[in-house]
């Protein structure tokens, strides 16, 4: 009886379900790529959105300034915004230096070392520049050092357009004062930024 039942039930064949699952996963993966990777294109807060800047200030509680995007020049984009306890970092990408973004990082401290002083970018800020090489590419670091923190900009530009690129990213990134941010939060939300 059992065999007869089994025989009649073999109306159906074994199916390559693995293919179906693989293709389903491929579809999902395609969807994920089309919708954009969740962590790949996080926008960096602008200097005109102080409530969003608060999280950068929280990442380095003592920093008297926080970096923000003043205005992005033509051909520049931001990505990889990563605020976390102890530091915040993000990148600036230029279409004239593809694959070599400017990495911006706010931390409690940094070591300018032998970097040479440059004109300060904000009151109470000491700015330094260190060039690791100038040919065939211009690579180096820029430091904004201020009480309680430091912003490090790591760049790697092709020789030639590097002057314009350095000016552009320097003007794109502003420094927002913590004091001002504290006042704004108190006014807007009625909360204190720092304990």
């Amino acid at each position, binding site marked *: 009886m059992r065999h007869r039942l089994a025989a*009649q039930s073999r109306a159906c064949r074994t199916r390559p379900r693995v293919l*179906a699952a693989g293709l389903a996963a491929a579809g999902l*993966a395609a969807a994920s790529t089309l919708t954009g990777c969740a*962590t790949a294109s996080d926008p960096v807060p602008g200097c005109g959105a102080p409530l969003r800047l608060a999280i950068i200030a*929280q990442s380095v509680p003592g920093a008297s300034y926080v970096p923000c995007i003043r205005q992005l020049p033509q051909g520049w984009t931001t990505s990889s915004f990563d*605020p976390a306890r102890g530091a915040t970092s993000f990148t600036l990408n230029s279409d004239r230096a593809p694959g070599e973004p400017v990495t911006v990082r706010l931390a409690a401290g940094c070591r300018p070392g032998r970097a040479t002083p440059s004109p300060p970018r904000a009151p109470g800020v000491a700015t330094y520049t260190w060039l690791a090489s100038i040919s065939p590419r211009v690579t180096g670091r820029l430091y904004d050092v201020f009480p309680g923190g430091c912003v490090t900009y790591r760049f790697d530009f092709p020789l030639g357009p590097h002057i314009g690129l350095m000016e552009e990213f320097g003007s794109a990134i502003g420094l927002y004062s913590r004091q001002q941010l504290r006042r704004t939060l108190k006014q807007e939300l009625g909360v*204190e930024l720092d304990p």
Partner: protein
Amino acid sequence: MNTVPTPGTPGAGRRVAPVIAPPSLGRRRRPSGEPPPLPRRIDYSTRWYLLLLALAAGFWVALSLRPALGLITRADLTVLRAVATVRSVPLTSVMLHVDAVRSGWTVRLIAWGTIATLVAFRRFRHLAVYLAVFLAAALLDSAVSLEIGRMRPAGIPILGPWQGYAQPSRPVAMLALVLAGALYTLVPAGNWRNRGKLAAAVVLGAVCAARLYLAVDHPTDQVTALILGWSLPVVAFCLAVPTDVFPVSYRRGQRAHLDVGGRRGAAIVSALDHQLGLDVLSVQPFGLEASAGSTPLLLRVRGRGDDHEAVLFGKLYALSHLRSDRWYKLARTVIYGRLEDEKPFSTVRRLVEYEDHLLRLMGDAGLPTPRPYGFAEITPEREYVIVMEFFAGAREMRQAQVDDHVIDDALRVVRRMWDAGVAHRDMKPSNVLVKGSRVLLIDVAFAAVRPTPWRQAVDLANMMLTLALGSTPEHVYQRALRIFAAEDVAEAFAASRSITVPNQLRSLIRADGRDLAGAFRRLAPKRRPIPVQLWDVRRAAITAGLAASLLIAMALLVAYARAAGLL
């Protein structure tokens, strides 16, 4: 073509008397507006979860309004300040350890463990939903987080590690997501799942409490994260793989098939009663280990007398079977080439209509196939049950004695198929039954009307190979010459080759050890092998496309895992 006339078929035609009772009073037309036997429905708990998701969406909108954000933030901070009053060094140490439970490694471990288990148990429907919901939740969490851009709790020392914006709490959402995903795809519904929910609640509660103590999240960040991480997968699983339709089970032979108990079982009984007039006494799955293209059923129905029972055979077809059929045919095209038209069915209704049609057509042609009793709609365009005669007392060809009567009858069946212009296309011992000295054919779902001459020849070759397993090629050949011309047999074995022989038959021949096909070829007049179109443009294109798709899929899988936070 060299043929001999068809022998007389005194027994041809409707030889199997109906065994069931006349249509009962249960047969009725479903009025417009009345739900089908198994309607798609959303239960109350799912509705509640949907409501929670809607509330979370409303809350996110409120957070984008400055006054509401201030109000909510102040309320959150009031709670956090109250919690902060119990802070102490030892307690902080404990809370940091508890918070570590939600680490990315924990989430990845549970997520990949769930995926691996689903693959191992071939629960691909659950897997597809799991992958989709995981990606959707991760993307939604990121999108909402970026859109709101909420800071961490202000004015209170934050004691624990954190990353990214606060609303919704991503670690809590991800932990809830993997726990709900594992529970609803791996744990059978009932006591085990309820215990699992309790354990998940304890874990989530502890992590949330720790993060509030450490002032890493606002309370409302956690509430929305829990709604997102728990409600979204639960709603998705309830809608796409409802427990009563796709139960999580670890019993052997069940995983590829639909559950025919519960709501579906009742729907089948009701549908067969209302649509076919069958008074069904019981519905039982059987022979599941041997099938995957449908869910085979044994139906006990009321017979002609009040105390008489009859047994019918049924097949439950659903969308999943239709999709399987499509992939099966695609794989056949790639593996075997385009031996013949292998167009997949477009809908479940088409598939079941075709099998019902074939049963009737072959019955009308006098072929000994199961008598059809029609098919019933369970869920429109999604699930259908086809009902046919059950061959009581019949045995598989390989278990029966293959005497001259059986050989002659089997060859006459092929001859009749040739005359009727149909081909079975899956001639093998398990599809050829013997009852007494009569040969019966089952599994006609993939038969073809007006097949190619090549396919008809292959049917003859496969039937002769099947018979030779229980006899000798010489004897089968001699009996075949009474019904077919020697040239017919020569053509059959010129068309036959390894790939045209069904897997089961091929395995049995290999186990038998004799070169059956070679023996038939030696006996029959010499004929050059008929070329099978192994490689054509279509097959080459499909194969190349499939290979490229798999490569792209691998690359995209990596992208998926990154997007979903699984790497």
